[in-house]
């Protein structure tokens, strides 16, 4: 059960044997090889590498923060901090009875608006289809956008959300994390907002350090006393 964690670079042989290759690894003969710089983890029957670099690649059901790039008469295009643009069809917002003549897209979302969206569909043949018709999704009216490296998003969330909870409780801020590395922080007080932003930046910079949650906690508390 003990999963051996190891630092790997591309080409490193992690293990050989009957394992299932998962994220960021390839099976070459009977060897399992890392394809990226990261930390390898061996489970009972599978091997994966947690990547430490790289751009965001959309995955179905991911929550992302998008910025409206432009729109046609039928759809919006969202910048989702990836190599692909998110495609948001007008029906998703106006409903089934959308009419390209009657409805004006810019009345709902304008260029530059931020939206919380979910990747509805994505495969290699097409740009990712996103949706905002769900609870907690849709246009973001207030808050500050913080950009972090997409590969560090899991660290910002922490094990079962511990890291993000720590920050939210200490600063009283509401934080929306997009899997694409864009994070929206909104907070009543300016002080809390600045502190939350600082904490997020800190996680981004020190992602590889162990017991980072404690360090973040320390940072947040030390400021509140002063």
């Amino acid at each position, binding site marked *: 059960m003990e999963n051996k*964690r190891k*630092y790997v*670079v*591309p*080409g*490193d*042989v992690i293990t050989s044997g009957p394992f299932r290759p998962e994220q*960021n690894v*390839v099976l*070459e003969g009977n060897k399992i*090889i890392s*394809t*990226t*710089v990261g*930390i390898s983890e061996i489970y009972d029957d599978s091997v994966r590498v947690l*990547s*430490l*670099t*790289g*751009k965001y*690649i959309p995955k179905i059901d991911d929550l992302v923060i998008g910025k409206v790039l432009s729109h046609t008469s039928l759809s919006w295009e969202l910048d989702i901090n990836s*190599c*692909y643009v998110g495609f948001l069809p007008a029906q998703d917002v106006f409903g089934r009875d959308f009419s390209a003549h009657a409805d004006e897209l810019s009345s709902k979302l304008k260029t530059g608006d931020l939206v919380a969206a979910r990747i509805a569909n994505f495969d*290699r*043949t097409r740009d990712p289809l996103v949706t905002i018709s769900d609870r907690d999704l849709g246009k973001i009216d207030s808050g500050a956008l913080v950009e972090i490296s997409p*590969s560090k998003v899991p660290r910002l969330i922490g094990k079962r959300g511990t890291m993000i909870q720590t920050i939210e409780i200490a600063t009283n801020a509401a934080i929306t994390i997009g899997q694409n590395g864009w994070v929206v922080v909104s907070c009543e007080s300016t002080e809390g907002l600045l502190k939350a932003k600082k904490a997020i930046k800190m996680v981004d910079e*020190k992602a*590889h*350090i*162990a017991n980072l949650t404690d360090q973040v906690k320390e940072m947040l508390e030390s400021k509140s006393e002063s």
Partner: protein
Amino acid sequence: MGGREATMVLLDENGIRCDGRKVDETRKITIKAGVLKNADGSAYIEFGDNKILVGIFGPRDVHPKHMSDTDTGILRVRYHMEPFSVTERKNPAPSRREIEISKVIKEALEPAVMLEKFPRTAVDVFIEVLQADGGSRCAALSAASVALADAGIPMRDMVAACASGKVADTIVLDVNNEEDQAGQADMPIGYMPNLKKITLLQLDGILTPDEFKKCVEVGINGCKIVYELQKKALTDKYFGNGID
């Protein structure tokens, strides 16, 4: 290349070369990963007197659009020498030689990078030679591979590169500029050390079949030395301080 009239002693009776190295020794190599902030990935290499900077962008949208491939991503490489990289000012426009090197480096990297994961995108590799010495294509290829790993482009293996050659009738590792000019053969090799595959093999000069085999062998040993340094560069950047 028959070899120009040698005005210097390329290899003395003790087996020491013109710059004081032994036959199986490389020049001093240092590699650093992640030196540029604005590029997605970057690397800097000093390989003897070569000083080369590599920046990576991507995967990103392909412009012009018609170049994109719906099946796979594409790799674009530009090898460029600065006007001040050589003793006489070099015209900054791409020369025949630079176009060739761009092409061979691209083809040497292609077997390693897994671009099929990013259809309709491009990965751009920009190589700037700040100071040139012999064997700049090998140094550039080694640095490009580190920069690609830094950018997080999935790769089956790193590509390490080193040249070998024939100087004064002896097979030597890592041919420098003087040896390249006056020597008998120069063979740049790109090698994937874990997959044990050659991705770049060029030969300028004449070798017998036996010499050829020896030359490849020596070159691959050089690649393995470079590979360790590439690994170190990445480890230093990502796992340098603080151990989990």
